[in-house]
């Protein structure tokens, strides 16, 4: 019930969820039941693309939760996304079984290639979906918890925090590039065959993954809404605007940050887990600092401090990216770079800020840094 109440007053969110529901109904129909010859037919490629956008949108919501509402500009959320993706990738690798190039029932191809004789301990259990699903949430969540515990306890804030989150994802990228880590090194994990017994290449599975992404986005959105509309959410915003003051009211600022940050990381992990089976690969490139910064700009463009703005930003920017990189690839980085500059200079509230006259707040979210 709390979740539904969380939408009270959130017109943008209601519209967003309505559209999401509509898409979740229409897309499968257009893909599965409309003949391929019809102009209304939606190719499976497009479905997968849309599914990918939805996982990005979930990731953006996770980032907005910590950035827009808590004032933590994380430049390392790509790492949590990638870790969730790797957890799912490990499950998918184990599902390949004997169908790999080397036909080893136990070891993934790259391990056979590296002459490993047995499965490393951290790969145990990933043949079970429930275990992998648990890890999808747990690994990013725990990493964020440990990292946050260290960082928040010693009051690392503002740009310092941003920079060390960036260092975190950078260090992880370097680590995952190493073959010795046991995650496929440079090539990452790929050549997946099926998930829960469904063939990953079939249209049905694709639609299933698309719907799962839509559901995850809706649930993730509601969960975040629940958090931000609770008293804890108000404490979070208070921390963003005047951290010291909140401490003097008796709130344990560090713990508030820690829990919300970890929750956001777990959410990013879920997004990554849904992303991987749809794109069919996960490699260390996902940890690249550039990715993490890019997703911050989705949120900035859509409008931070409104969760649906983050969804809007993620989908718009990624659609633009798909379009530009197809039509004129050189222009994309110019466009993205220009967006960064223009949005921060001219549109501090993002696209949402252009339209919405917020009933309550005329005040600009005050300076986020201490």
């Amino acid at each position, binding site marked *: 019930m709390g979740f539904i109440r969380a939408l009270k007053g959130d017109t943008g969110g209601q519209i967003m969820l309505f559209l999401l529901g509509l898409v979740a109904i229409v897309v499968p129909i257009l893909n599965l039941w409309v003949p391929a010859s019809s102009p209304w037919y939606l190719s499976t490629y497009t479905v997968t693309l849309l599914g990918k956008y939805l996982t990005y949108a979930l990731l953006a919501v996770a980032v907005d939760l910590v950035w827009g509402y808590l004032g933590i*500009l994380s430049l390392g959320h790509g790492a949590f996304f990638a870790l969730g993706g790797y957890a799912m990738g490990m499950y998918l690798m184990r599902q390949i079984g004997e169908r790999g190039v080397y036909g080893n029932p136990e070891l993934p191809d790259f391990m056979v290639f590296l002459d490993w004789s047995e499965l490393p301990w951290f790969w145990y259990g990933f043949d079970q979906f429930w275990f992998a699903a648990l890890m999808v949430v747990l690994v990013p969540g725990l990493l964020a918890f440990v*990292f946050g515990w*260290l*960082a928040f*306890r*010693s*009051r*690392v804030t*503002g*740009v*310092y925090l*941003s*920079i*060390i989150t*960036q*260092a*975190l994802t*950078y*260090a992880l990228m*370097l*680590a995952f*590039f*190493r073959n010795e880590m046991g995650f496929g090194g440079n090539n990452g994990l790929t050549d997946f065959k099926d998930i829960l017994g469904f063939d990953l290449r079939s249209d049905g599975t694709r639609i299933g993954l698309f719907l799962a992404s839509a559901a995850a986005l809706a649930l993730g959105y509601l969960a975040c809404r629940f958090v931000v509309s609770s008293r804890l959410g108000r404490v979070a915003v208070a921390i963003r605007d005047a951290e010291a003051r909140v401490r003097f009211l008796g709130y344990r600022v560090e713990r508030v940050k820690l829990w919300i940050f970890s929750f956001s990381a777990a959410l990013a992990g879920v997004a990554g887990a849904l992303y991987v089976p749809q794109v069919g690969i996960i490699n260390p490139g996902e940890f690249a*600092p*550039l990715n993490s*910064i890019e997703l*911050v*700009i989705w949120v*900035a463009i859509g409008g931070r401090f409104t969760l649906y703005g983050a969804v809007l930003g993620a989908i718009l920017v990624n659609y633009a990216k798909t379009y530009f990189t197809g039509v004129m690839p*050189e222009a994309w*980085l*110019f466009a*993205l*770079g*220009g*967006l*960064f*500059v223009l*949005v*921060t*200079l001219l549109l*501090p509230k993002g696209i949402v800020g252009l339209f919405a006259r917020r009933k309550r707040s005329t005040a600009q979210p005050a*300076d*986020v*840094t*201490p």
Partner: protein
Amino acid sequence: MQLARILLLGWGLVALGPASAQGHAPREPAQAAPSFEQSLTQLLDPSFKVKSAAVDAIAAGGDERAPQALAALLSGRLFYRKSDRRVVYAERRTDGYRITDVLSGEPLGDAGRHHIKKIGINNKLRRQLRAAIAGLALDHVEPKVRLDAVRRMMSDPDPNLAPRLQARLDLEQDAAVREALEQTLAVTDLVSPDAKVRLAAVGALRGNLEPVVRNRLSTLREQDEYPEIKSAATQALADIERKLTLYAKAETLFFGLSLGSVLVLAAIGLAITFGVMGVINMAHGELIMLGAYTTYLVQQAMPNAGEYSLLVAIPAAFLVAGAFGVVIEQLVIRFLYGRPLETLLATFGVSLILQQLVRTTISAQNVAVENPVWMSGSLQINPALSLTYNRIYVILFTLLVFLGLLLILKRTTLGLQVRAVSQNRAMARAMGVRSARVDALTFGLGAGVAGVAGVALSQLTNVGPNMGQAYIIDAFMVVVFGGVGNLWGTLIGGLTLGVANKLLEPWAGAVLAKILVLVFIILFIQKRPRGLFPQRGRAAEG
């Protein structure tokens, strides 16, 4: 000992025959010695005996052309022209040879394969030649040439040359050459049949770092019949190992310092923009890249001045990157003062634009920046330790840039104004400092320094559109680790991180070492959020 030398000398004499007897000759030239030209002609004689005599005569004659001629003969590049039996150097071309007159040194153009004939030598002559060439160098007037000659011999000692060396030692005045001669003789003594000689040689070679010494000593340790010699060799080897470890450490330190210098170079511009102005400039790496590309363009523009183009490139890179910096400040950053997170995002956008700009205007591929000759090669301290010049120059250059910057900040009006604005903007403005102008100039200064860093980096790594990204995180780490707003912190922080990285590398491997350093910094910041050298007091309570 001395007796052993003489014995050995006798043994060498027997082995060498007449040639080595001639070895003593240079100081007392034979009566009516044949001229260089005459001897050269004698080389054409089919008899090896005559040739041998001719070689001796050439070696003894002291003609300055002799070393080159003998070396050419040894390496099979000495020919004679069939038409006029003139002795020539011949260099292989795709079709035939290019020949040069030995006597006059004048080029004689190309010659077909059938027009010239190689002057043949046999093994005996080859030995004789080697001795003669070495002998010439040994008697060279320049001590440095002599030293080099001895050192060369030490790395592959020829027992046949021992008498020659001994003879030289008796005459030698220069201490360094004497020392080298003694060591070389000791190396040959290591394989002497006389146990006492071997033992003495082992003692003499303690601490010698030549690989050949180590090889021979370990052979002695394993195989010598006398336990005394075995244990002496063991001890000498331990000595050598200890020295080697020491030098290996010195080398690690040197590598660490040079890596640290690179980090400092990359970070020092950031220390100004971030540390002094509080601006997070994510395009800093791209300003470094612009500096590197400026080096490339300068080299393209003055293709004949490869050696000096760097000297032009340094100010050019400073100006180019500095100008870009001022433009970025004017167009973007000045609207975002006091909002560091927004600045971070906007400048990140700028960095993407700059990368793409270089990709579209120059090339998406890496470009080749030339290294001048004086940057290549290395300074050989001893056989175990050599320092490459480019690293040495980078360390020196970093210190220069650092000192220069320190002077600018401490001694110039601009520096004074920069510090004033960074401490109290309102007050500085009230005192008549044009803070907007100071901001632009400060940012330009930081950017210019980044450009200068780019010149240095262009000599060490690949220059490409992405090169800036490789440095930005490291640069931030250095500044944050050293303590924001403190140039000294940046210097010490950068050098420390560089050395730490290199210390970890042999133990953990390059990538893991980097990861460990990153993790260390992340943990360090938890402990000391304000870095090694924090700013304290009320002003720091931002």
